[in-house]
């Protein structure tokens, strides 16, 4: 095969240029890869630091709540029990004084019995506040019912509670979170929301349990940072996280709030 030398040169050039072209394509591919990778990794780092920040805030909320709770318990013990026991101990010393009259003795004893009774009652109340025995013994449904009754008894609010779900007592550890969430929500409705009516509903949805909570209080701005980062909110979110659930808040000023979460 004989080819004109001018063509030969041309052909070799074509071969070289095609090769060069493909190399440029390869370089473009590599550069494209390099920048995409950079971008993706940057995005991932951002995402992770957000998650970490969120976790940190939750942890902070948990610690602060824990400290508050300790403070409250300490105060309760100090005010309601220690003070009473102090007087009991004083009275007991009095019993030791020689030549006491019979009616004095009976008065002192009556005092002691009264005070011990009150102290006992207070201990029961403190223990009940920490963990309601009804919840502990009869499960979530009874616990929530009692909680609602307590709120109704305060006469400030009407609570409408409805349950369509059979709760298993073996799940009490998880249900305690639900109980605490409802406690927090109801406290908020009463304290900040000035609600007149509250409704709580448990329903079965796709094998899971949905809890719908609503009130007719003053509501709040869901998007405001202040509300989002409040301790109560953080605590509720942490608990829903622990339950592997999802929670949505819907509220507008003066239109009450609707909260739905599943577990």
């Amino acid at each position, binding site marked *: 095969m004989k080819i004109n030398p001018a063509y*030969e040169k041309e052909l*070799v050039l074509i071969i070289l240029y095609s*090769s060069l072209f493909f*190399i440029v394509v390869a370089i473009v591919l*590599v550069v494209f890869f390099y920048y995409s*990778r950079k971008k993706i990794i940057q995005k991932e780092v951002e995402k992770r630091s957000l998650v970490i920040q969120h976790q940190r805030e939750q942890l902070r909320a948990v610690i602060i709540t824990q400290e508050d709770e300790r403070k409250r318990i300490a105060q309760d013990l100090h005010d309601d029990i220690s003070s009473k026991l102090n007087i009991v101990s004083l009275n007991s010393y009095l019993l030791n004084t020689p030549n006491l009259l019979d009616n004095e003795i009976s008065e002192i004893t009556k005092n002691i019995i009264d005070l011990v009774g009150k102290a006992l009652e207070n201990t029961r109340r403190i223990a009940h506040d920490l963990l309601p025995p009804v919840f502990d013994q009869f499960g979530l449904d009874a616990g929530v019912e009692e909680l609602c009754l307590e709120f109704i008894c305060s006469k400030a609010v009407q609570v409408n509670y409805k349950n369509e779900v059979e709760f298993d007592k073996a799940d009490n550890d998880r249900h305690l979170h639900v109980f605490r969430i409802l406690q927090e929500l109801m406290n908020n409705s009463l304290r900040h929301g000035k609600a007149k009516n509250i409704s709580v509903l448990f329903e079965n949805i796709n094998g899971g349990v949905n809890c719908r909570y609503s009130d007719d209080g003053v509501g709040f701005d869901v998007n405001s940072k202040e509300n989002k980062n409040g301790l109560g909110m953080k605590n509720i979110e942490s608990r829903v996280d622990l339950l592997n659930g999802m929670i949505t808040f819907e509220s507008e000023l003066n239109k009450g709030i609707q909260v739905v979460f599943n577990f």
Partner: protein
Amino acid sequence: MNKILAFIGYFFLLLNFILFFKSIAHRGKAYRLFVFYLGLILIVQIWSELLIRQKTNNLFLSHFYFIGQFVILTLFYFNLLKKVDLQRKIVKGASITVLLILGWQYFNNPSLFFEFNLLEIFVTSFVIIIYAVFHFFNLLNEKKEFYYINIGVVMYLFGSTILFLAGNFMISLNPEINQLPWIFNSFLYIVYHVFIFVEWKKSYSKKKLNS
């Protein structure tokens, strides 16, 4: 000119082979396959150099080169693409198809053995490039593993495939100018091995610090 470049290429090949071979003991399967690959091309190169000295046709070695490269790099990438099942299936399917097609072709036309087989060059390079792109894709959000080698493979195969495809044709051309593409190929080959060397330098030279 071509001779000098070619020898620089051989030098890098030998150097890389030795460097990679030195720490083969504690490495994974993919690493070993890659060392095996370097060893295979080293043998093919030495052999072809010997045949040139004896002035015999060494073109049949190109088949060992292309098919050997194809088989080992396929295994290499098959190992790297562990995490994505679909990719592994594609690699398996494509490799078996390629080997069957080539086997059938040689069975029908054994004389192909003594020239450049264009289909073989095209298909083996093309498929390896696809595997390399898979690997790039997987590296997007992961630790860089065999990153520089992968760049080298993509660049060299993209650039050299067209030169080899023109190989048979260039033999018929004027010897004064038909060397040019081979010089270019030697140059690309050096670039390829520089990337392999960089991989060793970046990922494997500081082995003792870690262990």
